[in-house]
């Protein structure tokens, strides 16, 4: 393990903070994308099934 000297806590904390912010950004972006894709697929499936239901 590399010796980060007397200010190691500050270095580790800064990398942890950057990692946390980037992780939140990536996580929020991916989750929002998956949720939107699911909702759109469900809506389109519902719209596609409507004419068939109307014919019955």
């Amino acid at each position, binding site marked *: 393990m*590399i*010796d*980060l*000297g*007397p*200010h*190691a806590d*500050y*270095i580790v*904390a*800064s*990398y942890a*903070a*950057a990692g946390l*912010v*980037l992780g*939140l*950004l*990536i996580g*929020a*972006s*991916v989750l*929002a*994308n998956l949720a*939107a*894709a699911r*909702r*759109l697929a469900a*809506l*389109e499936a519902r*719209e596609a099934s409507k004419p068939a239901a109307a014919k019955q």
Partner: protein
Amino acid sequence: METAPKPSLWLRLANPAAFNALANVLLWPLIVGTIAAFGYGLYGAFMTSPADYQQGETVRIMYIHVPAAWLSLFVYAGMAVSALGTLVFRHPMADVAQKAAAPVGAGFTLICLLTGSFWGKPMWGTWWEWDARLTSVLILFLIYLGIIALWRAIDEPQRGARAVAIMTLVGAVNLPIIKFSVDWWYTLHQPASVFRMGGPTIDRAMLTPLFVMGLAYLLLYLVLLIVRMKTELMVRRIERLQIVAADKQARQGGSR
């Protein structure tokens, strides 16, 4: 026989389907590039970069702080261009890009502020100082938050896009203030040492990992921008479908 001229990429990207097709081609190479750049950049930041003769090991914070500062300005400059795209050229994807970019820009600015604070405590003896550079970057962060709040406050996308575009252009005056604050005022923050007249003052052993980390941040930004733009397009399509469904339902109810 005359054939219609092929539309430019700028015009073709106005079509969400064309944008999605291009985005799908670009996304995975950008993700792989981002991971590789972060891997190489972090290796350089911790393994090949020497300690600074004044800052010691604390210089390693520079590799995540400085690229975050670059990207906080770069993202905002891109949003200002998108704002012109909305107001002047009325490009349909301009406000989608702007809305997608704002939270990412805010994230980079927050990283810049946090890591700068963690560097400032051992080097300056203080977490925060109300000097021109630090204060102007804090204002940039607040402008980002204001833009995000404005998007959420206005339901109608086109009205929201115009209001946000005007606010973005007004806020762009802060960019040169941030860049030149260290020259115009006496500040605790050190002057420019990479992008300056006369070239960088940093040794190549430190400059290489710094630029690689800058590239990693840039590639990550492009990945997030594409993912968030695709999401925004889907959200708008969902809203349109819901409006059409509600309209159909209302007409059916009215005809009974």
